[in-house]
């Protein structure tokens, strides 16, 4: 009896995705596809002002409109103690305001109506009388003593939220004092928005008879939300069910609890009817939480030969009006202290100060693990700044300063223990693939002819997969993750996981993990997720944590099943369990390949013919607490050509060598990297959210906020090295966000490189054509 490894479809195979069957036929079930009997609709009245007092809200005309059932205001919620809700960062946030608004597009009231269009009509009929207040827009001015207060509700009467720091300040300062060379650069990483193509929404359905609240919602973390809902509302947790159905892209934007979810829930409890709330795009883009918005001042100390010694960084973080960032509780600045990157540094000191402004909450991720993008952008720009100052090749400076492959596990200057890495191998592979030396020659020739071509490198290290639980929690809930497997008598299985998917392909990859571990065909394994009534408790999918945490739990749960299966195998083979071994996806008598049983045989026996000392059934649960994070890395090289007539930057080639350890499904990993690169290019070249001095957002639709289309997106060239994580059960690291983190500095470095001979040493992202054209004009090299 031979086992067909291809039919098993385990680790390392590009299995086509199981979930595609429904998506390709238009049978996906996204939030707006839910239609419950008696369902009514909610639409939201939003503030036109960034900062104003609400003098009155008059809903008379709205309520007079046939079909309008109710108008909910902050005063209504206040009566129920629900006008405010806690944020993930131990701040609080208005669900609906009682007397003032603190950012433009903030929720002010909600209209419940029998139909979607009537709810929108009702919104237009709610009359709100505002008295504008001076808005706080510039985060630096926000810290001035005479600045208006964004949050007078706090005891602390300033706009400063918190101060955070990591590393050794004294040692860092000491090195700076005696360094041969110090380079300094201010960087601004602008506010951006994830803009998943599906906006946020929910259907809240309260069953008065059962007393049970079911909320179908666009969430990346259903269990955590159930617990928070229970704690805030007092509804017992078993009477709350959160279902995260098919999600049309998350990227971090669907981690927070937005006021709309809460108001819809209150509306359903009040009316006893299912209430649907779906954002339109402009609401999503104007009011949902934002990413980045870090004002950074960085200094790097080095020897004159290019040896990096110390890094000193000060940062102002604009968090908007509520500190509703999606970070682990103990990390108000996320994992920003990964800022020492892939390099050996004697010391580092990094500081962040969080500030309130009259803008929507900031600090959710944009496809990155907790502030890693800001950190990577800073260190990768600083390495290039140093190289430029010393007139060294940026590839040489990197090779010189990399943490050597034999130094892992490596303790960074800010305290992280990197699990594994081989940075020189990745960079060398990227350089060979793109012919780095040839490109440098081409660049010199072109420069002599007046053409503008640049080559940019980024050799980043990420930090993903939170826990471990001793350090990481969200509102006290430890950041483990989970898997439950039940093998059915006929040898198929159902796998339920504590994370969920927004397009990452978990229904396929998690089945592959089980297939590999149990030798059951991938086609016979169903993966379920996202329903808190059935899935084991987990913290959700974000920050590239699914494979490092729940993926590990899936492997460990499978191995628990295999342990039990071994006893049944001994029973069936009529030998001691100690005399059987797992070979080629089956149990065989040691040294006797002819005498074996498959997992399918064992599954049947587990229900029909199990030994006396073994319980019936074949199932296991695992709650996995990772011993450390995982540290994926990569080497990216970007080649750009700049149009002297328009200032437009064209990415001619982009080689991405990624290392995420052992790979479950190469096809899916490649897809994740393609998407991540595109979401890295987007803020590097196109996307930014800006406000005028009154706090009006200047990008409220896709005509002003420019997502990359197929025309701007280059053909990404991907490759890999494989350095397994030593502590992960199957040696994997996370991968979903590596490229978003690694790509922006490669692009920015390429543009600066193209303009370096003009004396350009830095450009803030997004590097738009007009920004570049102004430089070309100033240096007399613009055409036309």
């Amino acid at each position, binding site marked *: 009896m031979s086992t067909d490894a291809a039919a098993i479809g385990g680790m390392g195979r590009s299995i*086509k*995705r199981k*979930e*595609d069957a*429904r*998506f*390709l*036929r*238009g*049978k*996906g079930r*996204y939030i*707006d*596809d839910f*239609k419950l009997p008696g369902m009514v609709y909610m639409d939201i009245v939003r503030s036109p002002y960034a900062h104003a007092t609400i003098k009155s809200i008059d809903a008379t005309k709205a309520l007079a409109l046939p079909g309008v059932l109710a108008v909910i205001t902050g005063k209504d919620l206040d009566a129920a103690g629900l006008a405010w809700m806690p944020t993930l960062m131990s701040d609080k946030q208005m669900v609906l305001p009682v007397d003032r608004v603190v950012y433009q597009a903030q929720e002010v009231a909600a209209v419940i109506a029998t139909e*979607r*269009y009537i709810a929108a009509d009702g919104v237009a009929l709610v009359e709100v009388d505002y008295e504008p207040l001076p808005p706080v827009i510039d985060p630096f001015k926000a810290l001035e003593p005479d600045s208006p207060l964004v949050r007078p509700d706090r005891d602390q009467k300033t706009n400063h939220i918190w101060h955070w720091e990591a590393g050794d300040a004294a040692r860092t300062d000491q090195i700076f004092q005696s360094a041969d060379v110090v380079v300094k650069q201010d960087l601004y990483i602008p506010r951006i928005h*994830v*803009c*998943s*193509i*599906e*906006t946020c929404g929910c259907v809240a359905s309260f069953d008065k008879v059962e007393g049970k609240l079911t909320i179908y919602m666009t969430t990346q973390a259903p269990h955590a939300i159930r617990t928070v809902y229970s704690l805030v509302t007092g509804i017992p947790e078993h009477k709350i069910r959160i279902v995260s159905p*098919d*999600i*049309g*892209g*998350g*990227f971090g934007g669907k981690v927070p609890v937005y006021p709309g979810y809460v108001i819809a829930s209150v509306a359903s409890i009040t009316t006893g009817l299912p209430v649907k709330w779906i954002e*339109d*795009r*402009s609401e999503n883009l104007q009011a949902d939480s934002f990413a980045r918005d870090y004002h950074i001042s960085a200094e790097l100390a080095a020897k004159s030969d290019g040896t990096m010694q110390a890094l000193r960084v000060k940062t102002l973080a604009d968090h908007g009006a509520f500190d509703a960032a999606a970070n682990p509780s103990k990390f108000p600045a996320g994992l920003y202290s990964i800022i020492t990157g892939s390099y050996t540094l004697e010391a580092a000191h990094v500081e962040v100060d969080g500030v309130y402004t009259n803008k929507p909450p900031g600090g959710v991720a944009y496809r990155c693990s907790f502030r890693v993008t800001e950190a990577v952008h800073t260190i990768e720009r600083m390495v290039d700044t140093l190289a430029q100052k010393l007139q060294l090749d940026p590839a040489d400076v990197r090779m010189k300063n990399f943490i050597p492959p034999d130094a892992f596990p490596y303790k960074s200057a800010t305290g992280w223990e990197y699990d594994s890495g081989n940075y020189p191998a990745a960079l060398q592979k990227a350089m060979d693939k793109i012919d780095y030396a040839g490109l440098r020659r081409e660049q010199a020739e072109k420069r002599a002819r007046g053409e503008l071509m640049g080559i940019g490198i980024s050799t980043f290290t990420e930090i993903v997969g939170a826990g471990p639980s001793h350090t990481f929690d969200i509102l006290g809930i430890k950041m483990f993750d989970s898997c439950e497997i039940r093998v059915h008598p006929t040898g198929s299985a159902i796998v339920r996981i504590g994370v969920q998917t*927004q*397009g*990452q*392909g978990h229904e396929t990859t998690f089945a592959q993990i089980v297939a590999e571990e149990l030798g059951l065909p991938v086609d016979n394994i169903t993966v379920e997720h996202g329903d808190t009534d059935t899935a084991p408790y987990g913290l959700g999918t974000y920050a590239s944590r699914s494979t490092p945490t729940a993926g590990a739990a899936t492997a460990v749960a499978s191995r628990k099943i295999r342990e039990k299966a071994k006893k049944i195998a001994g029973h069936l083979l009529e030998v001691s369990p100690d005399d059987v071994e797992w070979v080629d996806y089956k149990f065989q008598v040691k040294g006797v390949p002819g005498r074996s049983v498959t997992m399918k045989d064992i599954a049947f026996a587990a229900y029909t013919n199990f030994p006396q000392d073994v319980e019936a059934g074949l199932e296991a649960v695992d709650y996995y607490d990772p011993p450390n994070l995982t540290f994926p890395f990569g080497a990216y090289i970007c080649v750009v050509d700049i149009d002297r007539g328009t200032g437009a930057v064209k990415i001619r080639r982009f080689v991405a060598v990624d290392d995420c350890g052992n790979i479950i499904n190469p*096809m*899916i990993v*490649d*897809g*994740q990297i*393609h*998407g*991540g*690169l*595109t*979401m890295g290019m987007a803020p590097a070249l196109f996307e930014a959210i800006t406000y005028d001095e009154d706090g009006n957002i200047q990008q409220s*639709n*896709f*005509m002003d906020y420019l*997502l990359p*289309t*197929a*025309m701007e*997106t280059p*053909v*990404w060239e991907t490759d890999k090295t494989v350095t397994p994580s030593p502590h992960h059960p199957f040696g994997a690291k996370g991968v979903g966000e590596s490229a978003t983190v690694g790509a922006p500095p490669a692009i920015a470095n390429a543009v600066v490189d193209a303009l370096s001979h003009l004396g350009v040493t830095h450009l803030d992202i997004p590097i738009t054509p007009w920004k570049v054209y102004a430089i070309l004009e100033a240096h007399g090299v613009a055409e036309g």
Partner: protein
Amino acid sequence: MTQHVTITINGQPFEADIESRLLLVHFIREVANLTGTHIGCDTTSCGACTVLVNGTPAKSCTLFAVQADGAEISTVEGLEQGGKLHPIQEGFFEEHGLQCGFCTPGMMMTSVAFLKDHPNPTDEEIRRAISGNLCRCTGYVNIVKSIQYAAKKMRDDQAAPTPAPAVTEAEAVR
């Protein structure tokens, strides 16, 4: 004020008295209950709502349903015929042209219309053709491959047409 319309979707006529302001995308999703057509931006930018109106791709969030009175609409639900995936669906499956799947129906409908006029497209032509359809997950590389896969499949099918019943029978046996 309501108006009576008859709109044929994937060959099936849907009759209804509707408000004249009802968007075509809402007619498709909520009157005909075909939820494969999605809404991503409601401003004609993202293309998630793309359907074919009398064979031409249109963003159904920017058409009133009354404008489609008497029209033949094709949506993602009509692509599969006789239990057999359309080559564009097969292409997206084989080349991993989708991740979250939200833009996919609109992306495929645009592609179907494009391939009718461009049976042998260059990658550049494909990229231009889908530039009105935004995808946030895939980075487009595999979408271009998916559309090339479909183009080849359709050219091959054209060159050597297989009698449809034979295929069905063969599959039934399997």
